[in-house]
C-alpha cells in the first residue's frame, strides 16, 4: 500500500506547467465524466474527482491507491490533451494523504491561486465535486474530504481579510472611490472616451452602488451607444469642463493629441462644485488629464501607474493575510485527520463489543445449571442488564485507548491492529 489514508492527488498548475500545456489538459464537461468513469474501477480507486480550471487540472482519488493507479491517474490527466505520462512527468506534482489533504484545502481557500484570495476557485472546486457526485464517482470518503475543504475555505474568507482589497486595475476605481467618498451610493461617474478597462471600471462602480453614469465621446453616436449599454446619459464632448459639475468620479480613457481636461478647467469646475471632492482616474496612455490638476484642493487624480501600484500593494496585503490563512488550513487538516481516524476505529469497536458479548453470553449458558433455579425476570435481568454492563465496563478503557491513539498517532490503525490481534477479530486486518 502506497498511502496510509488512501488519498492521492496528482495535477499540474500555473506554477508547474506553462499555459500551452495547461490548455491541452483542460477537461470539457463530457470528457470529465468519461474520464471519471474510466478512473474509478472500484478495486484500487474507489472514488475520484477532477478539478479543471484554466490555471490547474488536478485528479483526486481515494482508495487503496498504489503505484499502478498513479500511472492510471497520469494517463487520465493526459488523456484529454493526448499527452502521455512521459510528456507530463516534468510538470506534475503528486501529493499523498496529509500533503494531498493540505493541498486541496489550500486550493479551495484560494491560497494556491495565481492571484491569492481570488474568489472563483471555490466555486470551481464545488463544481468539480458536483460533477463527481453526478457521475457517481464521489462517495463517502471524498464527500467528507470536500466538505472539510469547503469549511476551511469559508473560515479563511471570514477570519482573514484575504479577499478584501481590489487586485484588478478596473476594480481599483471602486476601492479608491470608497477611500475618498465612503459609500458610493448617490455618486455620479463620468466616462470620457471608451475602452474595455474603462467600461469595466464603470460597470464595477455601478455594481457598487453608483447612482448615475454620464458618457462623453468624441463621436456623439458612440457616446449614445455606450450610454445605452450602461443605462447612462450621453453628454457633449466639446465642453467637458461644464459637465464636470455633476460627477464625483471621472474615468478617462481616450487618445487625443492634447489634454482632454486641463488643470484650469478642473479649477473652474471645482469652484462651481463648491469644492466637493472629485476623483479623476486617467487610464489613458499617454495621459489625457493635465497632471497639474492633482495640485488642486479636493481633487484626487490617479493615472495608470498609480492603479498598478494599488494593485501591487493589495497583493502584498493579501500575502500577509495568506500566512494567517495557512494556520487555519493546518488546523482544519488536523481536525479532518482526527475525524477520519476516529471514524476508522468504528468497525473495530463494534466487533470488539460483539466478541466480548459472545464470550459473556457463552459462559453464562455454559454455567447456567450451576446457578440453580432462576425466575424468568432474573434470567432476563442477567442477559439484558448485568452482562452488557460488565462488557461495557471492560471494553470502555480499550475503546478510549483506541480513540486516543487514533487521534494522536500518525498511523491510521494506531492501536487498532493490536486489539484486533489480541481478540482475534477478522484476521487482524480491517
Amino acid at each position: 500500500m502506497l498511502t496510509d489514508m488512501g488519498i492521492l492527488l496528482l495535477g499540474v498548475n500555473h506554477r508547474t506547467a506553462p499555459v500551452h500545456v495547461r490548455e491541452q489538459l483542460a477537461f470539457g464537461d463530457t470528457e470529465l465524466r468519461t474520464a471519471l468513469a474510466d478512473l474509478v474501477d472500484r478495486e484500487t480507486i474507489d472514488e475520484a474527482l477532477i478539478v479543471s480550471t484554466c490555471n490547474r487540472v488536478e485528479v483526486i482519488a481515494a482508495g487503496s491507491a498504489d503505484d499502478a493507479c498513479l500511472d492510471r491517474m497520469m494517463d487520465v490527466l493526459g488523456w484529454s490533451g493526448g499527452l502521455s505520462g512521459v510528456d507530463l512527468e516534468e510538470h506534475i506534482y503528486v501529493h499523498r494523504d496529509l500533503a494531498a489533504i493540505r493541498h486541496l484545502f489550500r486550493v479551495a481557500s484560494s491560497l494556491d491561486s495565481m492571484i491569492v484570495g481570488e474568489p472563483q476557485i471555490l466555486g470551481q472546486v464545488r463544481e468539480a465535486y458536483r460533477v463527481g457526485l453526478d457521475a457517481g464517482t464521489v462517495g463517502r470518503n471524498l464527500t467528507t474530504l470536500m466538505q472539510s475543504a469547503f469549511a476551511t475555505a469559508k473560515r479563511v474568507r471570514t477570519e482573514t481579510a484575504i479577499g478584501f482589497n481590489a487586485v484588478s486595475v478596473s476594480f481599483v476605481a471602486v476601492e479608491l472611490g470608497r477611500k475618498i467618498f465612503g459609500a458610493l451610493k448617490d455618486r455620479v461617474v463620468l466616462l470620457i472616451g471608451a475602452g474595455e478597462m474603462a467600461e469595466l471600471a464603470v460597470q464595477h462602480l455601478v455594481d457598487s452602488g453608483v447612482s448615475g453614469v454620464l458618457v462623453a465621446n468624441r463621436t456623439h453616436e458612440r457616446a449614445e451607444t455606450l450610454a445605452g449599454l450602461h443605462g447612462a446619459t450621453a453628454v457633449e464632448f466639446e465642453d467637458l469642463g461644464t459637465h464636470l459639475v455633476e460627477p464625483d468620479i471621472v474615468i478617462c480613457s481616450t487618445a487625443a493629441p492634447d489634454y482632454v481636461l486641463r488643470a484650469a478647467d478642473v479649477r473652474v469646475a471645482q469652484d462651481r462644485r463648491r469644492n466637493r471632492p472629485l476623483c479623476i482616474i486617467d487610464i489613458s496612455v499617454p495621459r489625457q488629464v493635465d497632471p497639474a490638476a492633482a495640485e488642486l484642493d479636493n481633487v484626487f487624480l490617479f493615472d495608470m501607474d498609480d492603479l498598478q501600484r494599488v494593485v501591487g500593494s493589495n497583493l502584498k496585503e493579501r500575502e500577509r493575510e495568506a500566512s494567517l490563512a495557512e494556520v487555519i488550513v493546518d488546523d482544519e487538516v488536523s481536525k479532518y485527520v482526527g475525524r477520519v481516524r476516529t471514524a476508522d476505529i468504528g468497525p473495530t469497536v463494534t466487533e470488539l463489543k460483539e466478541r466480548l458479548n459472545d464470550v459473556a453470553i457463552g459462559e453464562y449458558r455454559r454455567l447456567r445449571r450451576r446457578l440453580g433455579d432462576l425466575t424468568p425476570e432474573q434470567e432476563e435481568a442477567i442477559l439484558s442488564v448485568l452482562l452488557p454492563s460488565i462488557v461495557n465496563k471492560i471494553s470502555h478503557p480499550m475503546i478510549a485507548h483506541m480513540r486516543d491513539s487514533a487521534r494522536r498517532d500518525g498511523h491510521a490503525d494506531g492501536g487498532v491492529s493490536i486489539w484486533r490481534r489480541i481478540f482475534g477479530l477478522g484476521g487482524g486486518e480491517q
Partner: protein
Amino acid sequence: MTFLMTHILACYAAATVGAIATVVTKRQGLFTAAVVIMLVGFGLHSADLTIHIVQDGHLPLYGAQEVCSFLGWSLVLYFLLVQLRFPTHALAALVFPTALMLTLISAIAPPIETRPSSLTDDPVLFSFHAGLMLLAYGAFFTMFMAALLYMTQEREIKGKHFGAIFHRLPSLDTCDSIGFRSLAIGFVMLTAGIAFGMLWQYRRVGTLWTNTPIELVAVCTWLVYFFLVHYRLTSGWRGRRAAIGAIVGFGLVVVSLTVLRFSTGFHSLSPW
C-alpha cells in the same frame, strides 16, 4: 482611587488595547469587543458622575481632576454617537487612549476639598455653563482627531502611498462628516455655554463682561468656530481646509484650558 474609578480605568485600558489591536490586525471581532468593553466603562463612568452630582449638587467640574474626568467621559460619549453612523476603527484607536489618559490624570490627581461659594450658591447656572463648555471642548477634540485622520489619509492618497496606513484609515468622506457633525454640535454647545457663563457672571457681579483673559480666549475660540461653520455652509470649506481649521480651533481650546489652569478665582483649575 475609588473602587468605581479602578473599574472604569480597567475597562478603558482593555478597550484601548483592543482598539489598537483592531487597527493593527483589522479584525472586526476585536473592534466589537473593544467597543462593548468601552460601553461598560462608559456606563460606570456615567454612574460615577451621577454620584458626584448627587453629592455635590452640581456637575463635578471644579478643578483639573474633575474637568479631566468629564472631558474623558464626553470624548467617549461622542465616540459612541459617531459609531452609530460611522463605525471607524482608527478613531477608536485615537479616542480610547486619550479618554484613558484624561481619566487616569483625574484618578491620580488629589481631590479638591473646598469650593468657592459662588459655585454652591448657583449650582444650576454653574453646571450649565461649565458642562456645556466642556461638552463643546469634547466635540472640538473629536473634530480635531477626525481632522488628523483626514490629513493623514489625504496625504497618503495624494502622495499615492497605498500602504498599511491607507488601508487602515477611514475614507476622507467619513473623516470629513465626523468633523462637520462634531463642529455643528460643538458650536451650538459653545455658544450656549458662553451665554450661560455671561448670565452666571451677571448674577454674580452684575456685568456681562469683565475683560479677563479667559473671556478673551473664549471669544476668539467662538469666532474661529463661527467662521468654520460659516465658510463650510457658504463656500464649501470642506476636506483639507476644514481639517486645518479644526486643528487651529483646537489649538485655541488647549489655550483656553491652559488659561483656566493659571487663572485665579472661581475660574481656576488649580490645584492639580
